């Protein structure tokens, strides 16, 4: 029953939030506005899917914003040099994958806490992005590339939303229906127990960070398409929004808990809050306070759940 509550509370909050905003400001429900919410949250959501996997496995990655910027810049160089769009996107993803692989390898083989490794990586990747661009935006991307962020499939479905849906389905399948997904929950719940059950913990951990890096690269491509430039400064502070989406959606900072559906709801709660506040003319300063409070509430709930488990059965 408590599992049911845990899943239901974020969903009910999202619905409640939408109803309140729609009543106060009917423009919220216009298809133009909803599409813009989707576009604005797409980048966060794509990365949050990978972060769900990393956090379920008991890890964390603070370098996602930097990876996204570095990947975006790398892809922008390729595109500005005349590479076709598909190659540009692939370059972004490859750059992100490489960063993720480095993170995962350092965490899994050197046994350094992920918080520290990725805190360092956050600075390193950002620094490299600034260094190779000399701090300036990479320009000269083909206008066609903007379709990735601004285009609509069949004239109605925003392309970024389509990407989010594909990524979400894929990650959901991995987490719920594959061996890797099962190992993810086991490692996050108790890494030693997983190892003693014969799980190849190191390899799994590297794969989780690799997937997150790849998705950060994809997010970097979408962001570059939206700006039609490769911005080395983009994505600052995104790591916290990505982590917040996972946590609000029921993911646990101590591992073993979290779902794709929860994370989508978590990202939407933050996206809708920001959008609604804009529509209602609430300042972005106040928005930060509200979003901060929501995060604390979600973590409090998580801690309460865990305490209940700790005291039971004794």
């Amino acid at each position, binding site marked *: 029953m408590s599992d049911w509550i845990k899943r239901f509370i974020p969903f009910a909050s999202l619905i409640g939030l939408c109803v309140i905003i729609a009543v106060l400001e009917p423009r919220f429900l216009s298809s133009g506005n909803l599409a813009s919410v989707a576009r604005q949250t797409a980048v966060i959501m794509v990365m949050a899917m990978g972060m769900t996997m990393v956090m379920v496995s008991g890890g964390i990655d603070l370098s996602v914003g930097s990876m996204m910027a570095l990947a975006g810049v790398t892809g922008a160089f390729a595109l500005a040099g005349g590479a076709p769009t598909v190659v540009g996107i692939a370059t972004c993803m490859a750059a992100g994958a490489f960063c993720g692989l480095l993170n995962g390898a350092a965490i899994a083989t050197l046994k350094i806490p992920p918080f520290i490794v990725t805190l360092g990586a956050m600075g390193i990747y950002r620094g490299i992005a600034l260094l190779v661009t000399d701090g300036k935006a990479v320009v000269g991307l083909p206008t066609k590339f903007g379709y990735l962020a601004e285009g609509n499939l069949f004239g109605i479905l925003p392309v970024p939303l389509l990407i989010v849906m594909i990524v979400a389905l894929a990650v959901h399948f991995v987490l719920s229906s594959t061996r890797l997904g099962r190992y993810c929950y086991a490692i996050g*719940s108790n890494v030693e127990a997983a190892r003693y059950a014969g799980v190849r913990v190191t390899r799994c951990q590297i794969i989780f960070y690799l997937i997150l890096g790849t998705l950060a690269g994809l997010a970097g491509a979408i962001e570059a398409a939206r700006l039609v430039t490769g911005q080395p400064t983009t994505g600052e502070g995104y790591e916290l929004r990505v982590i917040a989406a996972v946590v609000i959606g029921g993911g646990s900072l101590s591992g073993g808990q979290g779902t794709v559906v929860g994370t989508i709801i978590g990202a939407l709660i933050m996206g809708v809050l920001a959008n609604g506040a804009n529509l209602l003319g609430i300042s972005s300063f106040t928005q930060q306070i509200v979003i901060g409070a929501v995060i604390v509430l979600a973590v409090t709930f998580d801690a309460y759940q865990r305490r209940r488990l700790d005291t*039971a059965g004794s």
Partner: protein
Amino acid sequence: MTNEQSALEMRGINKSFAGNTVLAAVNLSARAGEVHALVGENGAGKSTLMKILAGVYQPDAGEILIDGQPVRFTRPSDALGSGVAMIYQELSLAPDLTVAENIFLGREPLSFALLGIVNRREMNLRAGEMLKAHGFKIDPRASIKRLSAADRQLVEITRATVEAKRVLVMDEPTSSLTAHEVEDLFRLIRELKSRRLAIIYISHRLEELDVIADRLTVLRDGHAVYSGAWGEISRPEIIKHMAGRELTEIFPPRLAEKGETRLRITNLTRLGKFRDVTFAVAAGEVIGIAGLAGAGRTELVETIFGAYHADSGEIFLNGSPLHLAQPDLTVARGLGLLTEDRKRTGLCLNQPLATNLTLANLKALMRGWHLDRKRETAAAGEHIAKLHIRPSDPNKTVALMSGGNQQKVLLARWLFAKSDVFLLDEPTRGVDVAARSEIYRAINRLAEAGAAVVMVSSDLPELLGMADRILVMRRGRMVAELDGRNTTQEEVLRHAAVDESEPQAA
């Protein structure tokens, strides 16, 4: 008032959690100067009853009297204030503080009372005297995290004896002690009895209670089903009260034929832990490994399993050598380890029962890339039924299950992995009698089906009852091999006991 007035009286205690009745009108009374044994299966309500007595939980109904005076404990400090102290099963010491600091935590001797400056010298001195008086060889200045599990237990006992003025509760105090330390503990308990303390003693080991208990209360499913003087009813009758049914044989007979050698270890050495260990186990065989705490038994089986690297020596599994030992490789080759510490290296506590049960053999449930949930539920259900795991819901979070059932889940994990060689490290620690005999039966079925079983245990009757051969370890060396059917506890202990003049193994 009678002269038989109880030091402790709990009357009509009711408690339920989230609608589940855990205790129903339980009465318990203990006289001053007696050891009152409290027995029952895991989940019978012993721990809850004692937590109510310690002020950790509040009862829904009922009253507690100390020396005939009604008391109300709303927090643990209230209970301590009334002279009720408790030794918890799960250790509750501060690992970074010293032994003396832990013993005097909350009532440190002060030099200048007003300034609250701790008189460290006197504290160490008094703690040292206390430990010595109890016969425990522990340095009061040592920090807790450097002590062995057994020494921590002894520190915990020492601390509780300071706090206990009227009632002392001991929850499985011997679970991590060696036979020798148990004797020290019993000597201490007799001394506490002479100080007119009422001692509530929770244990699964009825042999132990034979030595120390004066009276007995049996709990079953939250009811006190029997209360009387120890010895009034026989051991099988006690077990019957606990289980609510007849347990004909604790150690069922085994009809296994010895087959080819499954596991062979030659000169295996891990420096500082064990040295030159050689033995072999054949299909259908159950061998026991006996020894005192710290003899290197757990380290040995964990190294065979591949959780740690050996410094030298060889391991042969089904005739072929294991070169690079790692759990993922040894598991794939048919080795399973039921770990000593199920919370640390066994269970994924916040995950469902089924996840824990199938973790070591998910490949049996795959259809290509896809993990077949239906097949998983069916496989889990089959093992739940086979080992009578309760609750039987495969989606139940294992943290919410009792210790005995958690242990059965872990055993089921290796049954499901179809291991050839089972390394069982303390397979029945903290497990109630009914679950124990279930585990013993499962071990017998494994041997009968051609598996080889290596069982590390500190419970000598268990080793004598189950093992074909008993290997005895002492200070990291294999010192004796005994025939499990023709040996005695005394003989095993004689080999296991440490001769002080002997050098350390590594």
